[in-house]
């Protein structure tokens, strides 16, 4: 199965779960609009996914259900049990298809959304049904059902499926069946595993999952209760009932003292009694869930009462029926929020480590004997925390393939609707980038590709006249360069028509003829990114929907990156994104101004210059310098951040100015002195400070001072 289908499979399963849970909840509270929205979104996204992988039957099936939900949302239809049933049936159908996809690695063929029965291929539930009927004798004790289809070549990976399965904790039954009917002995390959192993155990799905860890094959672990099997419990024998009644009496005894002792004794006796009845799982739960206070006593009492009342399963003590657990060897899906909190914690560790470094320097300055030791430990910590941090950040990393893979299909449609034959070449899809960036990248890239086909690529005739192949090529490239990820979209079209850009910019009031004359070619091309700029002579369906290149620039800058264009008339255009590898880490340069330390994101820094004070000229209220033949306005940090007075520049003979640039706009920030370069994990401002303009976030310095990191984009505004 390719990664794309794999992704579709994982996402669809999540959405089915989400939809099923939501449907069941919304059935309980039909008026809850939020729940209904959640369900609707799940169906909608499922449909979208099916569309992307071109699975028409699923798209139709889910669409039909979605239509019903739309009617419910708009109040044209009431949500009743039948509707919920139909929607759930639709999800079951999807699940069966997904099972087929998982088993065969390909989308099910010849299936029709209209068919009532699930498609060919055995739905997951079937094996459990067969397993249960074969083992009805032990079913009442079964908690977990397992089906393990070992890989054909698993013996070479050291797997011994029968040994593994027969060592399952609390095994109740084990069945072996061939995957394909056994061949004649002469044709048998004894080292190709051809077995399906199914088992029932009274251990929990969690224990079973742990036992199956690292298996080589496909393993399904299903909670028996969740598979819809009512647990048939035998009546409790009379002597056990008597024993349990006695235990209630012990708990109820009117002595407040020694409650803890009584609880312990009663729970142990009850657990043993359950074990005697073969109800190991209940025994385990009775033994585990314990405290020594009155609340624990009450819980134990109600558990025993329930055992007595039902004579069967004790519903309140049953573990939450866990959904089918799919174990996938060697991968673990973790909530991104947990990884983020891990990354943040390593950030805190870095701060703590820097504190030790500072202490070591202080100790050294004081001639303290421990200074050397402290420094040594600091170095070890520095190395280890550095490794920890890069491992934590690497967990957030995804290959760009997941984004790039969506383009061939999109391109095909765009090219055919515009009647321009285009081929796409992708390079470097294995390049990795932060999850957030990978997820945010699709829209801006799509915009660039649309523009390239729509505005960049000429008609086939025009191309032939220019001596180019009729089929245009668009290259989508990604590469990692140091701590940046570079992405380029190159077309071999007509390039950007500078005169036309200038003309449009003038017409839209984005530039005057006078300042256009002053501009370099690059500056003129840059006008494309100005809000409100669009050179499309006509509004096409593909691009030109009033969303311009300015949104692309905004999107890329929001990711902490930069976008640039290079173009040669007649030869084509390249749009490049330079994105940070990790959004969690920010490279900053520290500067001091008015006794306070500030951080400036290194991305924005162009250069640091030392100029004579008299070179700072006043233009009205503002101050400017002329640097490399350009006028650069100078700002004082204090003025920007709190509106305090500008300092008297005349007192100093020289000034340090850090020149920063964002979106082609430069500004000089006057500082007392530049500091060091460091990697920090930014904490957003919260509490009273939240919303302070010009500050992107904070981090702690080694000496305990707070570093305010400037938001250059906001400062330039």
């Amino acid at each position: 199965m390719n990664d794309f289908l794999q992704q579709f499979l994982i996402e669809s399963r999540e959405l089915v779960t989400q939809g099923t849970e939501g449907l069941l909840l919304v059935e309980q509270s039909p008026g809850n609009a939020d729940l209904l929205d959640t369900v609707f979104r799940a169906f909608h996204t499922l449909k979208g996914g099916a569309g992307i992988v071109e699975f028409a039957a699923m798209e139709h099936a889910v669409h039909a259900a979605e239509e019903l939900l739309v009617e419910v949302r708009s109040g044209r239809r009431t949500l009743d049990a039948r509707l919920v049933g139909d929607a759930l049936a639709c999800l079951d159908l999807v699940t069966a298809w997904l099972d087929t996809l998982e088993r065969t690695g390909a989308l099910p063929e010849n299936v029709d959304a209209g068919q009532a029965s699930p498609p060919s291929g055995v739905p997951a539930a079937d094996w459990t049904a067969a397993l249960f009927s074969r083992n009805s004798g032990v079913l009442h004790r079964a908690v977990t059902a397992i089906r393990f289809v070992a890989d054909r070549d698993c013996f070479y990976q050291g797997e011994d499926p029968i040994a593994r399965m027969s060592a399952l904790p609390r095994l109740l039954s084990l069945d072996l069946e061939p995957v394909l009917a056994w061949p004649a002995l002469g044709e048998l390959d004894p080292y190709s595993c051809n077995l399906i192993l199914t088992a029932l155990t009274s251990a929990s799905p969690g224990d079973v999952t742990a036992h199956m860890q690292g298996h080589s094959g496909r393993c399904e672990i299903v909670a028996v209760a969740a598979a819809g099997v009512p647990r048939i419990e035998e009546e409790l024998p009379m002597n056990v009932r008597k024993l349990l009644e006695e235990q209630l009496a012990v708990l109820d005894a009117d002595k407040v003292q020694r409650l803890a002792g009584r609880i312990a004794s009663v729970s142990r006796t009850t657990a043993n009694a359950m074990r005697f009845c073969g109800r190991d799982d209940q025994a385990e739960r009775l033994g585990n869930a314990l405290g020594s206070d009155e609340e624990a006593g009450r819980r134990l009492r109600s558990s025993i009462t329930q055992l007595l009342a039902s004579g069967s399963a004790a519903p309140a003590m049953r573990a939450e029926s866990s959904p089918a657990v799919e174990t996938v060897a060697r991968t673990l899906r973790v909530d991104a929020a947990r990884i983020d909190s891990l990354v943040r914690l390593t950030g805190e560790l870095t701060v703590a480590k820097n504190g030790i470094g500072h202490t070591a320097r202080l100790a050294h300055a004081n001639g303290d004997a421990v200074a050397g030791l402290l420094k040594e430990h600091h170095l070890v910590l520095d190395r280890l925390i550095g490794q920890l941090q890069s491992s934590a950040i690497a967990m957030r990393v995804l290959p760009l393939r997941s984004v790039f893979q969506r383009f061939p299909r999109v391109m095909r449609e765009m090219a055919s609707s515009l009647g321009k034959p285009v081929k796409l070449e992708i390079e470097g899809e294995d390049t990795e980038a932060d999850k957030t960036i990978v997820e945010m990248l699709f829209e801006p890239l799509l915009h660039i590709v649309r523009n390239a086909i729509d505005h960049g690529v000429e008609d086939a005739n025009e191309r032939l006249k220019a001596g180019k192949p009729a089929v245009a090529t668009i290259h989508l490239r990604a590469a990692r360069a140091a701590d940046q990820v570079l992405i380029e979209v190159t077309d071999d079209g007509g390039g950007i028509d500078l005169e036309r850009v200038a003309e449009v910019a003038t017409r839209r009031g984005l530039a005057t003829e006078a300042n256009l004359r002053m501009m370099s070619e690059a500056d003129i091309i840059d006008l494309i990114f100005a809000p409100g700029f669009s050179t499309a002579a006509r509004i096409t369906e593909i691009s030109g929907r009033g969303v311009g290149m300015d949104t692309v620039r905004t999107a890329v800058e929001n990711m902490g990156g930069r976008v640039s264009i290079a173009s040669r008339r007649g030869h084509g255009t390249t749009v490049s994104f330079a994105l940070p590898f990790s959004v969690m880490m920010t490279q900053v340069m520290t500067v001091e101004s008015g006794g306070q330390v500030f951080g400036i994101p290194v991305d924005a820094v162009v250069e640091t210059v030392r100029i004579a004070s008299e070179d700072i000229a006043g233009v009205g209220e503002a101050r400017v310098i002329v640097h490399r033949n350009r006028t650069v306005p100078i700002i004082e940090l204090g003025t920007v951040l709190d509106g305090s007075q500008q300092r008297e520049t005349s007192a100093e003979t020289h000034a340090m100015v850090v020149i920063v640039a964002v979106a082609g706009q430069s500004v000089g920030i006057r500082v007392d002195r530049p500091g060091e370069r460091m990697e920090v994990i930014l904490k957003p401002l919260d509490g009273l400070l939240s919303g302070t303009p010009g500050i992107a976030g904070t981090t702690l310095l080694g000496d305990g001072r707070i570093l305010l990191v400037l938001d250059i984009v906001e400062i330039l505004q």
Partner: protein
Amino acid sequence: MTVRLTDRGEILLEDTCPSEDAEILLQKLSADPDAPVDLRACEFAHTAVIQVLMAAMPKVLGPPAGLALRDWVYPILARRSVSD
């Protein structure tokens, strides 16, 4: 040698049979498909070996010495050899 032919023409599995025994067992069963397989001295056998038994369906002599083999695998092999 954990797989060998006895004087009585039975195939004897002894102790713990590693996966390599699958090939040997397959050869012996191919040579004489009617030879009974004696599992009574067998502690455990690798899945590859048991697969050969499942495919060949010989008459098996048991129960085996090893508990896991006796409780979980032998009933399946015995059932097959009896029913067929």
